[in-house]
């Protein structure tokens, strides 16, 4: 009996009221287990991302101790923004292989505890920036996305409003999500009046560092049901191209499509079957490159499609109904978890005013580094 996704939980993204990072993890795990109709003692696999706001390298072991559980597999995964999908795929594999029956996947962080500047400084030291040949120049991960953005706009002969279309879309979507970091409206005049922080990137082009996170419970499908629909992981694809952007074959292309193709093939689906796409957009330029690579828009046209409403409610495919990383928030090491959570919520029909009618197939995308690694999962309601 294969694995299904049965439980899901998320906390508001912004400044958390949780007293510690461990407490936030505990809250999320308990909420996801309650949603699945399960208890802590039933968890026999625990997968986490080591948060930046706690020092543990193998954070999952510290969390298991905090929860008072003794799982079998107890792992922390380093895979950047692909980690939520990678962890879900690993958990499903453990269940399918008979290694576990109830697996909890959780990613959460409280970067604002230490201050966002502190978090961004550590990113510079551990991100895809060569410690010997690049770090001394004053380059940050944000700089790398700015470099992609200028190359992309130049290559496709687009103006700076092309980036703004992504920021406007995410903000409009986030207005309908109670957990989103930024819910105030933003128009193009407001976007163009916002400060250039890393020219050509303006402040709304950059995912805001927030506290936040989410948890997902996967179980063997024949365990007693929870009173709501289960969600199936129909296909997962991953692709890794480079670590440092200087080694990429081009500054304007994304390998997201390689991962997407693998996931769609496994799921027996095509990109046209996708009702909701959760695309990793830590920066607006990442959305343009990734949406095109995934086949949601032709090369160089994603911004035009956003402007035309093709990715909003009633559009061809709804992209990031939760507001994306740009407006739902960028919860440090937990970035990407909200994409997985939103796909599950949409497939269960529980998204309230932002529910995409008839959502049957969801695509979840995650990305690490500087367009380095990509992961895509295709989710459906379980049979």
């Amino acid at each position, binding site marked *: 009996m294969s694995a299904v996704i049965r439980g899901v939980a998320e906390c508001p993204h912004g400044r958390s009221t949780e007293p510690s990072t461990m407490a936030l993890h505990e809250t999320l795990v308990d909420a996801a287990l309650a949603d699945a109709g399960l208890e802590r003692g039933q968890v026999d696999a625990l997968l986490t991302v080591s948060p930046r706001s706690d020092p543990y390298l193998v954070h999952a072991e510290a969390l298991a101790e905090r929860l008072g559980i003794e799982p079998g597999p107890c792992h922390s995964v380093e895979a950047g923004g692909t980690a939520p999908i990678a962890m879900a795929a690993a958990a499903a594999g453990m269940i399918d292989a008979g290694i576990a029956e109830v697996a909890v996947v959780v990613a959460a962080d409280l970067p604002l505890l230490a201050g966002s*500047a502190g978090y961004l400084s550590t990113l510079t030291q551990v991100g895809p920036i060569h410690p*010997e*040949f690049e770090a*001394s120049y*004053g380059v940050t991960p944000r*700089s790398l996305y700015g*470099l992609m953005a*200028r190359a992309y706009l130049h290559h496709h002969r687009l103006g700076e409003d092309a980036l703004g279309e992504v920021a406007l879309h995410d903000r409009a979507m986030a207005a309908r999500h109670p957990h989103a970091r930024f819910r105030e409206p933003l128009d193009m005049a407001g976007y163009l009046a916002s400060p250039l*922080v890393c020219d050509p990137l303006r402040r709304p082009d950059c995912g805001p560092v927030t506290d936040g996170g989410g948890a997902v419970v996967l179980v063997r499908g024949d365990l007693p049901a929870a009173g709501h629909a289960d969600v199936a992981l129909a296909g997962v694809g991953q692709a890794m191209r480079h670590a440092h952007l200087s080694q990429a074959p081009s500054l304007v292309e994304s390998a997201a499509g390689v991962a997407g193709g693998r996931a769609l093939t496994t799921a027996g689906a095509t990109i046209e079957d996708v009702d909701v796409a959760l695309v990793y957009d830590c920066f607006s330029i990442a959305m343009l490159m990734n949406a095109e690579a995934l086949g949601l828009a032709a090369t160089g046209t994603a911004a035009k499609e956003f402007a035309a409403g093709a990715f909003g409610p009633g559009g061809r495919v709804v992209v990031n109904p939760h507001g994306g990383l740009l407006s739902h928030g960028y919860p440090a090491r937990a970035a990407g978890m909200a994409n997985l959570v939103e796909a599950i919520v949409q497939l269960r029909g529980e998204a309230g005013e932002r529910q995409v009618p008839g959502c049957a197939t969801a695509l979840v995308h995650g990305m690490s580094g500087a367009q380095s690694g990509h992961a895509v999962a295709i989710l459906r309601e379980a049979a």
Partner: protein
Amino acid sequence: MRPVSIVHERPRVTPEAEPFWTAAAGGELRLPSCPACEAWLWFPRATCPTCGGDVEWRAASGLATLTSFIVERRATDPRWRDRVPYVIGYVTLDEGVVLLSDIVGAEPGELGIGTRLRVRFEPTDDPAIAVPVFEPFDEGSPHA
């Protein structure tokens, strides 16, 4: 004109790239190349990633073209706050490899994708170590 008297933090220097750093201290851009594959390599390394053979360290022309650039206006890292605005770019060396570096000696408005650049070296807080940076130059004038 942007000041160029920035003292960079000492990079984490490894023995593997010693020929690169020794040359840089003397004002020369010396890069590994693979004689068997006839390819220049970046990042500096001792062996060719394609054939596994030992590299040959050769002087590069130091000439490059700007591939993309950003202007940091609000540094997120406190160590760099008093430098803003500063320019970071990808430069494609005439030898074909792409380096991330500082772009100096020009106002951001004078730069564009395709601007021709030449290497120069700037000090770090270790007097024995210098790092390459790139500045625009007029191709018509002597650059030696």
